[in-house]
């Protein structure tokens, strides 16, 4: 079978640790040749612990991550999640928002891919208070970062036979910053004449998403609008419990639940939806080239949600997290028993 891959696992806060437990369990049943090197970062971690985790991810190249809670009341604080992304230069965040046939949502049959710039923009975290009561927060947009995320979006569209890329911006007001982003997207678009390119202002985008979402295909945008649009799109397909988020850089890849929630209010209660983290784990397996294992698990996930319909409360059901996991394991066992794999 070959050598096992080593991957960094960062459980994070809230429901992260219990989710990672489910991932390990399912990987065991599916015979996945992946070793996890667990390094924990929580809201109370020191700088050194954080640095150690980064070194670990750099060594392994790939990580599965839960969300780290932000202590935004603490003056010395800066977002660990955001810092991790910029330190590892994970410039593209990809969220594939797809409707599930058996999950209640207002709009069925949605299939939108969101590609969000992940290292700069409003998340540059450069702020200062020169005069008491007056704070300046810097949003930085560079041609370099805009170009590589735009290129990623068009390459993605081309590789996956998607027909249209829409750039989301507010260049009518932020003429220089978003203007640079938009102009860069336009330039890159010229190199991909087979993919249709359009642009839309972010407020209109949100309005369109909640009234006529099927017009969207692939969307590319700067960091903050990405946060807004991701959450809107995610809500439209049934919520944060299902989608996985992928973060790619030139050298490293980190997989996590798509909407990056810590789920602190439901931690340890056996009610959280484990699907988002499990889908993230599958995406990670695809990335590692372990397609057969990835397909085995994602098949079991799909059957659990769409056929057996074991749904946790967030998607309208009454199952516990364990019910969902056990159903997935059961399906995996059935398939491996029947020799339906490799």
């Amino acid at each position, binding site marked *: 079978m070959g050598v096992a891959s080593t991957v960094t696992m960062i459980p994070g806060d809230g429901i992260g640790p219990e989710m990672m437990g489910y991932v390990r369990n399912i990987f065991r049943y599916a015979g996945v040749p992946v070793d996890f090197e667990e390094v924990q970062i929580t809201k109370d971690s020191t700088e050194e612990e954080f640095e150690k985790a980064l070194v670990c991810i750099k060594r392994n190249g790939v990580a599965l991550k839960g969300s780290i809670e*932000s202590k*935004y*009341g603490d*003056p010395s604080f*800066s*977002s660990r999640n*955001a810092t991790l992304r910029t330190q590892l230069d994970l410039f593209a965040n990809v969220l594939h928002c797809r409707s599930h046939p058996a999950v209640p949502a*207002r709009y069925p049959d949605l299939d939108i891919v969101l590609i969000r710039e992940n290292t700069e923009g*409003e*998340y540059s*975290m450069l*702020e*200062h*208070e020169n005069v*008491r*009561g*007056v*704070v*300046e*927060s*810097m*949003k*930085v*947009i*560079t*041609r370099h970062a805009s170009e590589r995320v735009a290129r990623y979006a068009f390459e993605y569209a081309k590789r996956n036979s998607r027909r249209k890329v829409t750039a989301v911006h*507010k260049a*009518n*007001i*932020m*003429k*220089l*910053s978003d*203007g*640079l982003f938009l102009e860069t997207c336009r330039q890159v678009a010229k190199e991909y004449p087979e993919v249709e390119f359009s642009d839309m*202002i*972010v*407020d*209109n985008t*949100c*309005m*369109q*998403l*909640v*009234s006529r979402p099927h017009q969207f295909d692939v969307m590319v945008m700067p960091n*903050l*609008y990405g*946060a*807004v649009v*991701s*959450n*809107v799109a*995610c*809500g*439209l397909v049934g*919520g*944060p419990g299902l989608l996985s988020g992928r973060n790619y850089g030139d050298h490293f890849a980190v997989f996590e639940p798509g*909407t*990056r*929630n810590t789920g602190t209010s439901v931690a340890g209660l056996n009610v959280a939806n484990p699907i988002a983290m499990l889908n993230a784990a599958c995406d990670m397996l695809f990335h590692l080239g372990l397609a057969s294992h990835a397909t085995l698990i994602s098949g079991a996930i799909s059957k659990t949600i769409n056929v057996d319909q074991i749904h946790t409360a967030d998607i309208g059901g009454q199952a516990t997290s364990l019910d969902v996991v056990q159903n997935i394991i059961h399906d995996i066992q059935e398939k491996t028993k029947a020799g339906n794999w490799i």
Partner: protein
Amino acid sequence: MTPVGKGHRSLNLAIRKEFNLYANVRPCRSVEGYETLYRDVDVVTIRENTEGEYSGIEHEIVDGVVQSIKLITEPASRRVAEYAFQYARSNGRSKVTAVHKANIMRMSDGLFLRCCRETAEKNPDIKFEEKYLDTVCLNMVQDPSQYDVLVMPNLYGDILSDLCAGLVGGLGLTPSGNIGEGGAVFESVHGTAPDIAGLDKANPTALLLSAVMMLRYMDMHKHASVIEQACFETIKEGNFRTGDLGGSAKCSEFTDEICRKISDS
């Protein structure tokens, strides 16, 4: 304030500066008779309208690197927070939610949030909560009934107010008010629609509801309610709907029916 039509930008800006219009208020309510997939929307977005991301301070540091400055100040944040609670009280609303991203923009949104918290303490009769922008977006498209009055800095307000308008059917029915220190300006937020101007076809609801907001601002609550009630009843009954709502009534017919209802009440 985001112009959907063309040509009035500089005038809008001049009026805003003249009266120091610091809070943009947009109530979004589901309209019976103009159904969308969202039936239970009743939120009000209150957006700080003078600073934040729209301060217009941008520069190119070196070729290909642009910096845009978001400005958050204590006076402006406090002012809009106070207005939000005052609005909630005078309009019988029970909860104010401060929308922010202080996990990322710790100092700027942190300052805004602090001002909201301090104002909340002075207004214990109104419930207060703080939520991340991401969470609000996620929840708003799934269950808008969990929100009441929302207060936030400029950009988030711009996006969220349009998001909420989309939930109830777009800008055609959305009123808005701009509150200032020197006065208040109430207006619809749709475009100027030059193609149907003067043809007795337009839907006057947005402007009418803006006028209702104006009456409430002037403490003429009874008159406001009578007109608002008549307007919603007319749309609900469906006999006199304008083209944009799927009917064939003229603007004057729609308005006459409203007037009829008012004189009957």
